[in-house]
């Protein structure tokens, strides 16, 4: 066993930071797009129009039984076909993350909507609001507040999952670490460093989520 050389990490830091920016970008896109699209799916799943509800249900259940890696492969293959010319790995990864996470956010938001007492809806309707207004002004704000801790936890999971873009050689933090590890022959240092960084970020974030949900509870 050779001795540890932590200098290799210091020298690789700018390169790793470029990777971390991709990881954060994917997470942000997944959260934003996933929540918007997931909310639409949740409303559809609860809609009175049966075929729409069934379609949304099929979407959610299918995506929730697929590995993220398979979804990444799907879009890495589909996107160039759909656009008609080769595009980079980043747009297909972003699309895959949004569509995949939407299925999970949909179920979280659906649970949030179900937690809003029925009387609220009836009262809002009685004051003359339209269905869309009831949804926008009464149901969704309460649903989001109730589900905020779960959505944050899901976001932490998603941040960890961005490491899987390794399979389509998109250079996120994990892939960058692996590139340096193989280039410099420093597997131990780089993978341990990656583990420590991910742990520090995710553990801090989950502590913050825990503290916040205890305060609001």
């Amino acid at each position, binding site marked *: 066993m050779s001795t540890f050389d932590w200098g290799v990490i210091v020298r690789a830091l700018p390169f790793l930071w470029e990777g971390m920016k991709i990881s954060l970008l994917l997470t942000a896109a997944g959260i934003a797009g996933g929540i918007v699209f997931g909310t639409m799916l949740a409303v559809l799943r609860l809609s009175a129009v049966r075929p729409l509800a069934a379609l949304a249900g099929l979407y959610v259940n299918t995506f929730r039984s697929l*590995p993220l890696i398979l979804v990444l492969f799907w879009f890495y293959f589909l996107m160039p076909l759909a656009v008609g010319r080769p595009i980079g790995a980043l747009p297909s990864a972003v699309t895959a993350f949004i569509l995949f996470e939407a299925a999970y956010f949909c179920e979280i938001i659906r649970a949030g909507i179900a937690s809003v007492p029925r009387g609220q809806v009836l009262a809002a309707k009685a004051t003359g609001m339209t269905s869309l207004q009831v949804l926008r002004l009464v149901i969704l704000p309460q649903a989001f507040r109730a589900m905020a801790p779960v959505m944050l936890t899901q976001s932490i999971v998603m941040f960890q999952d961005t490491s899987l873009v390794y399979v389509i050689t998109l250079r996120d933090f994990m892939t960058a670490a692996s590139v340096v590890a193989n280039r410099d022959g420093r597997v131990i240092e780089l*993978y341990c460093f990656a583990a420590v960084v991910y742990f520090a970020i995710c553990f801090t974030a989950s502590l913050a989520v825990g503290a916040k949900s205890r305060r609001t509870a």
Partner: protein
Amino acid sequence: MNYRWNWSILFQEPYFGWLLSGLRWTVLVTLCACSIGLLLGTAIGVARTVPSRAARGFGGAYVELFRNVPVLVQLFLWFYVLPELVPEGWGRWLKRDLPLPEFWTSIVCLGFYAASRIGEQVRSGIEAVPRGQLSAALASGLTLAQAYRLVLLPIAFRIIIPPLTSEFLSIIRTSSVVLTIGLLELTAQSRQIENHTFQGFESFAAATALYVAVALVATFAMGLVERRMANRGFVARGSFAP
């Protein structure tokens, strides 16, 4: 969009065989990982609820450690880093002499990861058992170990079967990560078929259908387990007539 469909490719050799072999690896890895995860996770869940402060601290640290590091990183640590850190003889054995190193690494890695999640379910199951049960068990002369084995765990497991089902489903999905160390499970095989034939639609659709089918079978099987255990076990939902 310009695409030549050819669904028959899926039923030609060698591609049909690749899909089947991939499915077999996915199922095998999932079953082994779930077994390890269930055993270890039970131990972790119990550790988090016993009176000993040290055991609770260890259980908590285990869960946080394995839950906050991505599975891919964990897998690379097990596969690339561990053989370098152990004594040289063991490292050589891990790298050279162990047959199917990808498989053993995969089930150990996924098993330890699953244990952190299953441990949390077991803990919440134990905490959901009414406190009087433990007091009554201890008062009737059972030791703490007996109380866990005969009273708390049997009730806790019945309570947590539904969340446990979704943990198992999540391990099926997560198992695809092992393709990164060269184990050709279902996702890897569908990718390989795409590379060979350029029929991406067909190969990924086949993998999609198979994953959905596996998830349905697993859900159905866990439903059977739930009903079987509910019948002869703990008094629940009106099955008890005074």
